[in-house]
């Protein structure tokens, strides 16, 4: 098969997620309502607490990162969830596709949606709270976004693995992963305020490093973006391998059939 055929195997998931999203009125909530509400809440809180401009930037970067992460991770997980909800998993997995076709095709759409949300939040945070997200130039923004999208892919893959391993209801548990990320990766506070055990956990999460890197543009401080990037790459590779393994396992155990019923 030539490269265009191979490319279309990836784009099949992008295409499906795009059509489903554009026909779903609640997509507007995912793209506009919740992201803007989240940003406004945090922005207004900083005004009420009358915090310094450094703290404002700290919190707004965290809020925006969390919103993009949640938007994009959903798109990766949707690649399996849409099939599961419509009971059409058999039709997908009888085709000659691999786990990475599904993940990267869905992630591409997640990146498009995430970047769209990012654009809206950059404008809103600039107009309402005077925070310039692009102050450090385009390169730090791109590096930061790559980190967030890699993290989103890892969480989305984990949701898919949970469903294929434990069945339909497992997605609820898997979503709680983003709660763990919220707690320990320094979204709204520096990881140094965490108890030592949780600090150790935060150092195992790539998003922690990408947040520190991006915040260093506004508030000088140490960061280890290389380690963050290596961890993200490692988790992505391991996640893809485990996703492939969980597909094979679902075929062996018969969960693949039960997910279609």
């Amino acid at each position, binding site marked *: 098969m030539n490269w265009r055929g191979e490319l*279309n*195997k990836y784009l099949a998931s992008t295409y*499906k997620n795009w059509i*489903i999203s554009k026909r779903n009125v609640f997509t507007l909530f995912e793209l506009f309502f919740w992201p803007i509400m989240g940003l406004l809440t945090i922005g207004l809180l900083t005004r009420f607490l009358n915090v310094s401009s450094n703290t404002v930037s700290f919190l707004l970067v965290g809020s925006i990162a969390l919103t993009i992460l949640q938007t994009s991770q959903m798109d990766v997980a949707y690649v399996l969830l849409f*099939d599961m909800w419509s*009971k059409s998993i058999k039709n997908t997995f*009888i085709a000659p*596709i691999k786990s990475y076709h599904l993940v990267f095709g869905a992630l591409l759409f997640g990146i498009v949606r995430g970047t769209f949300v990012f654009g809206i939040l950059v404008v809103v945070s600039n107009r309402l709270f005077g925070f310039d997200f692009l102050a450090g130039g385009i390169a730090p923004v791109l590096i930061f976004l790559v980190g967030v999208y890699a993290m989103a892919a890892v969480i989305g893959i984990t949701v898919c693995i949970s469903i294929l391993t434990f069945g339909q209801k497992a997605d609820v548990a898997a979503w709680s992963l983003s709660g763990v990320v919220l707690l320990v990766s320094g979204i709204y506070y520096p990881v140094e305020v965490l108890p030592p055990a949780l600090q150790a956990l935060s150092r195992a999460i790539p998003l922690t490093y990408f947040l520190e890197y991006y915040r260093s543009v506004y508030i000088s401080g140490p960061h280890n973006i290389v380690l963050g990037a290596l961890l993200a790459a490692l988790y992505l590779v391991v996640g893809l391998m485990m996703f492939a393994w969980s597909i094979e396992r679902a075929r062996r155990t018969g969960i693949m059939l039960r997910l279609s019923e």
Partner: protein
Amino acid sequence: MSEISVKAIGIFKGYKSFFGKNTEVLKDITLEIRSDEIFGILGPNGSGKTTLISIFSTLIYPEKGSLKILGLDSRTEKDAIRKQINISTAKPNFPWSLTVRENLKHYAMLYGMYGSELKKSVDEQIEAFELEEYRDIKFEDLSTGLKQRLSLAKAMLNRPRLIFLDEPTTGLDPEIAIKTRQLIRRIHRENEVSVILSTHYMPEAEMLCDRIAFLRHGQMVAQDTPQNLKNQLHLGERMILHYVGPVNIDELEHIPGVMRIKAEPGIAEIVIDRTAENVDRIIKLFAGASILNIDIIEPDLEDVFLELAR
């Protein structure tokens, strides 16, 4: 000489519960299916038909046994197999909010089609399955019959050499079911596609299938052409006589070839292994009465099914 589409030897499959309890669903299935035939897998609900079709289509894997699909090993050459097969599932389901055309395009992309080849294949299937006027209707708004046609169209997208149809007419009204059967026959004939279908609807199997296998409790209890199965099981023919007047029904038991007798006043239903001689003797027994009507009914697959399901 035709090729072999499926060669299965000693296939076993069980499902383990969370606590490790194993429920055996298929036991020691061995069969060979030729590429030029429509092969039917029959059996009551829960007999393992869907599991067997899912194994043949590489959707799930057997625990034990050897399986070759289109001459390829199902363990080591899965991708090569998947490129050349497709499936139409029981109760067809597709992403709800995608239209007929969008669904076909999505699945064509999963098979690595692109550009004009993709468009041509989608358009061809829409035309072949008479879906033109529904091409922009969302899947959730289609009738059951149209969903089934979409499912068959999707199964033909990658121009497969072998397709699996899992209960293709379940839930369809009789008129649509007849049309669907005609479509299946056309797919097989015109596209030279090997067809393996599961059904618990006996007339469908009799109409479509060159050969059939009966499953019961996960085991294959018979495998042959419909006619041979009927002959092998010695099911006999049902002779139904409506009469008026005195007849000694007990005498029927002494006529060679009479297998079963069910009698009510005025009606006698006799199952016989028919020969000219025993029919003659039966008629003679009714000489003292007036025969109003005689029907002789050949056994059908329903009878085979009932016999094998016992």
